[in-house]
């Protein structure tokens, strides 16, 4: 097995995006992602930790494959069938200091809570390990860069 096709490229880590509430859900997160993808040459994948479905979906604006797949009945199906998704998740787990065996979940990532009210994880009902535990996040990884982005 080999990950040679993507090793050597760059993995973009989206550490945090914050937009004032009155400007949220108006595409500024996507603009931010486009801007950084155009500025940083050679980015072939992206990853983040989140409790928000919006953040997971954000990655779909730049990449053709996103795990978890929130539109699927089995949202973690890419992990089962795509070695690169598992590999990137493991790399990113190391980056954020997560326990690899818990991947894609990151236990106690939000020790003092990132989010106030409302907790966006209510929209991640398909991932109860996140929804039911306010200190947990999930690693989202994205690959297969979309043409023109």
């Amino acid at each position, binding site marked *: *097995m*080999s*990950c040679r096709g*993507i*090793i*050597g*490229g*760059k*993995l*973009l*880590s*989206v*550490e*945090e*995006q*914050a*937009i*004032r*509430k009155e*400007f*949220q*859900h*108006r*595409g*500024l*997160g996507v*603009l*931010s992602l486009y*801007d*950084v993808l155009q*500025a*940083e040459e050679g*980015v072939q994948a992206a990853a983040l930790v989140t409790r928000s479905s919006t953040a997971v979906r954000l990655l779909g604006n730049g990449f053709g494959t996103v795990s978890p797949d929130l539109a699927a009945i089995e949202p973690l199906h890419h992990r089962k069938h795509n*070695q690169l998704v*598992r*590999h990137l998740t*493991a*790399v990113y787990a*190391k*980056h954020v200091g997560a326990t690899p065996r818990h991947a894609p979940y990151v236990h106690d990532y939000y020790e*003092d*809570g*990132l*989010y*106030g*009210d*409302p907790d966006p994880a209510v929209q991640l009902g398909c991932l109860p390990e996140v929804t039911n535990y306010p200190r947990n996040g999930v690693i989202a990884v994205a690959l297969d860069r979309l043409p023109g982005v």
Partner: protein
Amino acid sequence: METIKPIHNITIRRTHDVLGYYATHAEELTSVGADAFGRQTADFEPHLAERFKKASLLQVVRHKRDVIGYALYNVLQGHHWRQTAVR
């Protein structure tokens, strides 16, 4: 159905001097982050300081002259990936 109104007069500025920018704009950035995540400013400040320490790229999003958002990124190079490469 809710209509999404386009926003005009948006600018995004990028800098790799993440800590330098934070040092001079901490109060403004904390206010933005606390509002974005529904937190109290005082509670959010330590979180933000830690995040800025760990990031290598900062975007500042302005509407006209006002800072309305920020984004923090890192870029992991290929050699980092190899450390955990699958055999």
